[in-house]
């Protein structure tokens, strides 16, 4: 009995999946289409132009500071989140995986708790603590960066921890048997093995930082520190022009380009270690963890 006859191709399911993908992606393409409108409508097609990107002297993304500043702020926060959360998270993951004894269980619990805490709760809690206790941290870029790092750490921990558990302790112990000090063993045996996981966590941190809305909004100090999602929220219902669509489309292009670049670096690092299989699938796995 061949597999083909035993399991019929489920054409209904295939159609359903394609319909889902169309439903998921077509609205985005439509939003991008309207960003190239010649007229001011954001709901009907009105010719083609780059007016809302740079053509219009006042209202285009290039000329309206409230729009291009938002993109710069989003990128700034994502860069800080990667630079701070990845090292902190890697050290935390390595420490928590190996540390046995008093305080280890609690620390492990606390390091994963932000993953399941609704963003609204984190946003409100940081807003309240910065306005009533740690008042030396002013609302704005610093407060937002602290928020982004805080929700990013747990993602780094869970991704790096997964890799650590599959590596085991053998490599470090072998390095130390050969005369390496504990720090040398970490740096020369463990760190290279962790590189793919570290790069993968950087991709995820970048994606969730660019996507974040609630924490960026609660900790923003006004339009000067609004990120792209905050700007979209503020203008979406009232905005009179497709410049907002242009900003969103531009942000999407920048996000995809940077994520693709990180993705290629990650895939190279991964194949250099002889890991095979579809890289996309692994990334899909990380996004869910």
């Amino acid at each position, binding site marked *: 009995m061949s597999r083909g006859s035993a399991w019929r*191709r489920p054409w209904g399911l295939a159609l359903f999946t394609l319909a889902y993908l169309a439903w998921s992606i077509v*609205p985005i393409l439509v939003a991008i289409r309207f960003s190239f409108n010649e007229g001011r409508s954001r709901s009907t097609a009105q010719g083609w132009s780059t007016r809302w990107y740079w053509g219009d002297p006042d209202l285009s993304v290039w000329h309206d500071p409230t729009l291009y500043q938002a993109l710069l702020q989003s990128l700034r926060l994502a860069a800080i989140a990667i630079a701070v959360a990845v090292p902190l998270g890697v050290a935390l993951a390595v420490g928590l995986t190996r540390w046995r004894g008093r305080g280890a269980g609690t620390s492990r619990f606390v390091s994963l708790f932000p993953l399941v805490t609704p963003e609204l709760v984190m946003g409100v809690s940081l807003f309240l603590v910065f306005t009533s206790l740690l008042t030396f941290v002013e609302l704005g870029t610093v407060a937002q960066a602290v928020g982004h790092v805080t929700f990013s750490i747990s993602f780094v921990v869970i991704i790096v921890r997964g890799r650590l558990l599959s590596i085991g302790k053998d490599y470090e112990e072998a390095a130390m048997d050969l005369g390496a000090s504990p720090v040398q063993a970490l740096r020369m045996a463990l760190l290279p093995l962790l590189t793919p996981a570290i790069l993968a966590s950087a991709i995820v941190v970048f994606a969730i930082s660019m996507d974040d809305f609630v924490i960026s909004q609660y900790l923003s100090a006004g339009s000067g520190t609004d990120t792209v999602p905050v700007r979209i929220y503020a203008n*979406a219902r009232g905005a009179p022009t497709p410049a907002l669509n242009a900003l969103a489309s531009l942000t999407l292009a920048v996000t995809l380009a940077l994520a693709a670049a990180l993705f290629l670096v990650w895939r190279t690092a991964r194949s250099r270690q002889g890991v095979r299989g579809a890289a996309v699938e692994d990334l899909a796995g990380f996004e869910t963890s």
Partner: protein
Amino acid sequence: MRYPRWFWPAASLPGVAWLALFFVLPLYAILAIALGSVDPLLQTVRPAWNPLDWDTAAFDFVFEGLLGGGGFQKVFVRTFAYVAVALVLTLLIAYPVAYFVARHGGRWKGLLLAGLVAPFFISYLMRMLSWINLLQEDGWVNDALAWLHLVDEPINWLDGRASSVVLGLVYGYVPFMILPLYAFLDRVDPRLLEAARDLGASPAEAFRMVTLPLSVPAVLAGTVIVALPMFGDYYTPDLLSGSPNTSMIGNQVNLYIRGGQQVPVGAALVCVLMVVLLVLMLYYLVATARVARRAGQA
């Protein structure tokens, strides 16, 4: 050589200290403010850091509105209703898609997966923006409905309709449900299904008696992942409706926290929400820890 005893706790210290300062302490701040007071002259909040100073006025106010049939009760019931409907729809969409890609993706699997992951790189707010474009009175949704003769007059979908809010929630969160389901269904051992077939089960029976029961934990995990942010959502109703008639718990929290004079009420609402969600959160953490332990043993 061995690692000294202090080595691993020391490596964890910066991360643990960061989370203690910027995650645990702020959570306590919510409680201290919910149980604190507002300065009658300056209108600033006075948190009660010391449990001896706790004042339950804000909680009394919330519970009165919640149990006495006031506005809070309406909002809580509405939030639960929206989330419940959105969860059912999300699951009905996510399961077949995840199942198809995992079991029958074949050589298209990589491409299909890229399609499933793509929404993670498109900001949630942009995804809502595209629906605002489509659902305008002169938008393409009305054009399509008119072309199909389903409506005579264009409908303003953005003027406070529950259906638009639920559509937004489903559209926004489906990808988060699909990926955990996919990750699980992809790992189901095909030999189990072959065995079911050899024992006389039809493909439908094999699915109902093997795949479906096995996937219950993944369905629960996906449901929790999606339910948690839905309960804290305020931007989807703001963007796709904007009317107080579709206001969710998140909108109320937003109103009180930013309103100034009744910040403790907002904080108390967050506390109540946290207690309601705690079961979901702990379930997810325990389930993930179990999976991680198993991976460690393998």
